[in-house]
């Protein structure tokens, strides 16, 4: 097993931490949407960026929004959020948004809410502090994603599929936490020390 992939135990711990973080995220999303919302417990995977690009092939011809937000600290990287247009419309409707700029703003907010609450909580659980920079939104066509520098710069990706349900609306999205090898090493270390403490 490669130095940079997680063992089954480590993966389990990460999943557990993520579940806790998701609880927080759900509460924040509910706050933001001002409605009772549920987030389905996500499945997380750690994959290589090249594999991610391969997965993204499915997006060809689809319309979607793609937003990113960088974070810094012991655990650093960039989080990306994909949301399909239908889900974005659902969001706009719910928030009574008037124009496209407001929609972009709301998507960024959702990105920020999801990634911040997840990542911060995750970091907290591992005794680290991280800071977020301003998110940015991209409407990249599929072929540009493939050559996008942001994605290429990172080696490993934590992929989290999310589904937010509120009222009778649904928002489907995918969160990618892109990290460099150093951060993955740090994550692995933290996970194994948590594991040790549990034993």
């Amino acid at each position, binding site marked *: 097993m490669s130095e940079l992939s997680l063992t089954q135990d480590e993966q389990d711990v990460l999943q557990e931490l993520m579940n806790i973080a998701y609880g*927080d995220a759900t*509460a*924040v999303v509910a*706050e*933001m949407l*001002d409605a009772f919302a549920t987030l389905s417990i996500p499945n997380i995977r750690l994959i290589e960026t090249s594999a991610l690009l391969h997965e993204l092939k499915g997006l060809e011809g689809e319309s979607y929004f793609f937003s990113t937000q960088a974070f810094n600290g012991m655990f650093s990287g960039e989080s990306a959020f994909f949301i399909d247009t239908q889900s974005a419309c659902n969001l706009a409707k719910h*928030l*009574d948004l008037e124009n496209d*700029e*407001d929609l*972009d*703003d709301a998507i*960024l*907010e959702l990105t*920020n*809410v999801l990634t*911040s*609450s997840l990542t*911060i909580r995750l970091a907290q659980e591992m005794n680290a502090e991280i800071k*977020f920079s*301003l*998110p*940015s*939104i991209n409407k990249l066509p599929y072929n540009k994603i493939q050559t996008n520098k942001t994605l290429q710069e990172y080696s490993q990706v934590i992929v989290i599929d999310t589904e937010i349900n509120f009222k009778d609306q649904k928002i489907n999205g995918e969160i990618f936490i892109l990290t460099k090898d150093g951060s993955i090493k740090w994550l692995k270390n933290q996970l194994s020390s948590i594991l040790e403490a549990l034993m």
Partner: protein
Amino acid sequence: MAKESTEQYFRSIDVDKKLIANIDNGIIIVDEALNIYYFNKWLEIYTHLKEKDVLGEKLNSVFANINVKTLQRKIRTALKMDSPSFYIASNSKYLIPIKINRIKASGFTHMRQDVSVIPFDTEKRLVALIISDQTSIVSMNILLELNIQKIEDLNKELIREKNIIDKRVLFMKINNEYLITDCSQAYMDLLGVQKIDIYLQNFFNYENLKSAEELTKEILNHIQEKKVYKYEKITLTDKEKEITLLNTLVPEYDKNGMHIGFIIFSENITSAKLVQKQQQILLQNSRTSAMGEMISMIAHQWRQPLSVINTIIATLKVKKELDVLDDATLEESYDKIEKTVSYLSDTIDDFRNFFKTNKELSLIPIQTIFDKATNLLMGDIKAYKIHYTENISDDIKINTYKNELIQTLINILKNSIDAFKDTPRENQTLTVKVWEEPRYVIIEIEDNAGGIKEEIVGKVLEPYFSTKSKNGTGLGLYLCKTIVEEHLNGELTIKSKGVNTTSIIKLAKNLENKKEEI
């Protein structure tokens, strides 16, 4: 000691407050209901409002433009997350309206702002709104996007043009190892080939120039000298159609001037070649019009023998009337007439052969040729008292078309006789000299019949030029020139000095050799 005093100093001046007051960002502290708790100096300067006037006021009543719902949502979220939420300048433009009047602001009336909503006091539910000026970045981004758009447009245009060139222009690129590295669609379409058939093939193999070794050598020479080179080449398409290409090989250099290969531009000249061929056929057809010319020539050459026959018949008539006609004279006359008539029909054959290319060459002594030529002229030579001499050594032989040479000699000798006829004089001489040079036989025919005037000597070889009014057609010397230059690969010159006229015929000794040389 130093450390202690430093600490004391910083404690006394309240670092945070001093810094925040002077920081290059706007800072407002509000609660969830948007009541203002703090309004920093930066904002005072930009909004022209004093902190004391806005404290306790609602942000949305100070700034009416604020979307309360969105701002409150962001505040709630930030507090809930205990982590900032944001407004992004590119989407939300600005939160606090601040007029700007900078020249470089690219049309914005208000400062563009990024706003971070930072949880300040979770218990009191206070947040700090940190406002930063993003105007130049946003306008820069707009400028950038505009330029990116321009570049993309240009790029599209370039691609479009490249496509047009690709579709229309026949070209191929080869690298320094003579491998084909690029090939236009037009070229592939013309030959009916696919990329895989052609890419990275060796140019020489592909061009299949093995058969044309000479051409391959030529191309290689030019390639090595990095010179532009043009050559024609016949190629087969996939449908086995023969096409002719005019290829131009141009050396290609990279941006540093390093030679990196060649571009071969091709021009499909198949149809041009076809036109050329058709022209040749037309030219052949114009031989039919040459038939007319031929008939004129035959007629021209018939005049002398016909006049010989005429003379014989006239003589016979007179002798008969005087009743002095004996059998011997009759026999002799018949014989002469028979010979002359056969010469007439030979002349027809000679001229029929005139345009054939596969005529038979004969190796023949020059003397024999002169004997045949003078045969018809001897009557006149004697009648006009011309002193005719030949200076030909026996062993001079020539490999040529003999009948055509005979016709030429007859014409030239006849012209001399005509000149003597016109202006008889004392001591009339007609002299023939023949000598050899390594590759040529030179025939010189000279008379003293009065010469040719300087102003017309240059015209005598032209068709239909004659000074003999109705007696001359002016075709004689033209015929000679045509025969000598086009059929015998020789040269004919007519010179005149005083009463003398000299005709010089320079002939290839061996017509076959001469032909190979060309």
